[in-house]
């Protein structure tokens, strides 16, 4: 590692990136500031950056946990549950598929990989209408199964796990067989631990995607008590007026879990993407 020196160029770069970092964090700062002000103030004045201690309070947050905003906590719970189940299952299934494509030579292998790439390139929004019809006939409308199932085996993690598994030594396969391990034993006992960084990076991406997903849950979920957090929050925005007090504070708290996951796994994330990621 070369020693970093304070040269004019490095200072200029530092300045540039400080400005960019401020720009990146600024909207979240504005949100946090707004969450401390009463809803009426936002409607009257719009979002501004004045610190006005006269009117600032944690009332909005207190409201989120009160009886009248009970639905907020229900949405939060729904999102947590769906995200947890989706992340665990999708990582399990897509790691299997990616590993299978990378490690074995079998007829149809290339075709399956081409299909993975195809699914990656077609925006899912295009098949929303037939999927919606399908969900109606499968009686999965307004169920959490209906939200999770169609996108459980996701192409991006498959692609990623395949890239990662390509870099693993095939000798482990033979060694495992010699020791009497089954093909599945080799995968779960030897390969999964070796792919840990890939699991780390993909866990963040999948959890993030599920926690924030919007269009599909918007279509599938109907009942107020079944909504996920993004759908619930967006339902607070109506042409007839906004429930800013619960919306803004609710938005701040909605970012918290994903921010924690990121801070916790951050190192894993960049290194995981770097090792197995989209290299040439």
């Amino acid at each position, binding site marked *: 590692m070369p020693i970093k020196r304070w040269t004019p160029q490095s200072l200029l770069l530092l300045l540039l990136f400080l400005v960019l970092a401020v720009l990146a964090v600024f909207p979240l700062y504005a949100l946090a500031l707004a969450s401390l002000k009463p809803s009426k103030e936002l409607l009257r004045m719009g979002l501004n950056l004045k610190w006005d201690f006269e009117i600032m309070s944690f009332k909005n947050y207190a409201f989120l946990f009160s009886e009248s905003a009970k639905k907020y906590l229900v949405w939060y719970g729904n999102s947590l549950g769906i995200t947890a189940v989706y992340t665990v299952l999708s990582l399990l299934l897509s790691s299997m598929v990616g590993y299978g494509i990378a490690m074995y030579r079998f007829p149809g292998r290339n075709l399956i990989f081409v299909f993975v790439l195809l699914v990656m390139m077609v925006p899912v929004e295009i098949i929303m209408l037939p999927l919606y019809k399908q969900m109606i006939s499968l009686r999965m409308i307004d169920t959490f199964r209906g939200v999770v199932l169609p996108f459980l085996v996701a192409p991006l993690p498959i692609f990623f796990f395949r890239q990662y598994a390509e870099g693993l030594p095939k000798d482990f396969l033979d060694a495992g067989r010699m020791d009497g391990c089954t093909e599945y034993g080799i995968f779960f006992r030897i390969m999964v631990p070796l792919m840990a960084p890939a699991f780390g990076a993909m866990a963040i991406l999948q959890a993030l995607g599920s926690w924030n997903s919007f269009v599909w849950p918007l279509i599938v979920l109907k009942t107020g008590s079944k909504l996920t957090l993004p759908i619930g929050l967006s339902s607070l925005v109506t042409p007839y007026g906004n429930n800013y007090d619960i919306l803004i504070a609710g938005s701040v708290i909605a970012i918290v879990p994903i*921010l924690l996951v990121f801070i916790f796994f951050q190192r894993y994330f960049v290194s995981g993407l770097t090792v197995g990621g989209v290299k040439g």
Partner: protein
Amino acid sequence: MTKFLYSSRIAPYVFVLPFILSFLIFFAYPVYATIVMSFQEVLPGQTHFIGLANYKDLWNDRFYAALWNSTRYTFWTLVVLIPLPMVLAVFLNGKRMIWSGFFRSALFIPTLTSVVVAGTIFRLVFGQLDQAVMNQFRHLFGFHTINWLAGSTTGMLVLVVLATWRFAGINIVYFLSALQNIPDELYEAAAIDGANAWNKFRRITLPLLKPVSIYVITISIYGGYAMFTESYMLWNGNHSPNDIGLTMVGYLFREGIETNNLGFGSAVGVTLLALTMAVNVVQLKFFGLFKKEE
């Protein structure tokens, strides 16, 4: 049976089985169904073929608005969100960079916010009131207050700024991951040959970033044409004044889900499918993915 499943000839198929099932049920069949539906009038309980009528109905102002908005949005996100993150990643990866890890995280944080949250913030930041942040900013330069989301151009600007804010960080990570795989020796050798910074970037960095660039361009085209939620959040739902925020997916959603016109909605979807495929094939051809590499 167990023995059969455990044999090493069958095992690979067991591994890829989840994908095969999911692909058939939740991808191949829906794609087929949507193509069929696009030639049908789908009414509750009865469905009949009406030939190309749905496609003929596409020739209307609303569809043009959606197509124009989505294309414009995709174009501008490509113009901004490829070169900018690439250059920033090169800086962040450079030897002169101080606190690189910190900046990487700071720039990545916006990616973590959901569109719902980001849309809410940007709607307020670009609010129409005098005191709204961006109008205050305009006042600094002596400009008057405007209603950002009422005009087609300024509305598009807000959408593109929102996209830049949210996705610059993840694209930086993609480019960084590729940059870190370029061996230092290449730059050292170039330095010995007397190459300056620009030449190194032009002759070494840029060509070696090609695979990741193609990937980022592909997902940007995908994301651009699939954009919907951003506009949904900025304009209080799927109905903006004069459809300035209407996108292809917004139109599909409006026709297919809101008015339950599944046949016509499918025609919009199939058009969108053909469009994204065509743009991506041209793009891949142009940047040479089909050419043999190495």
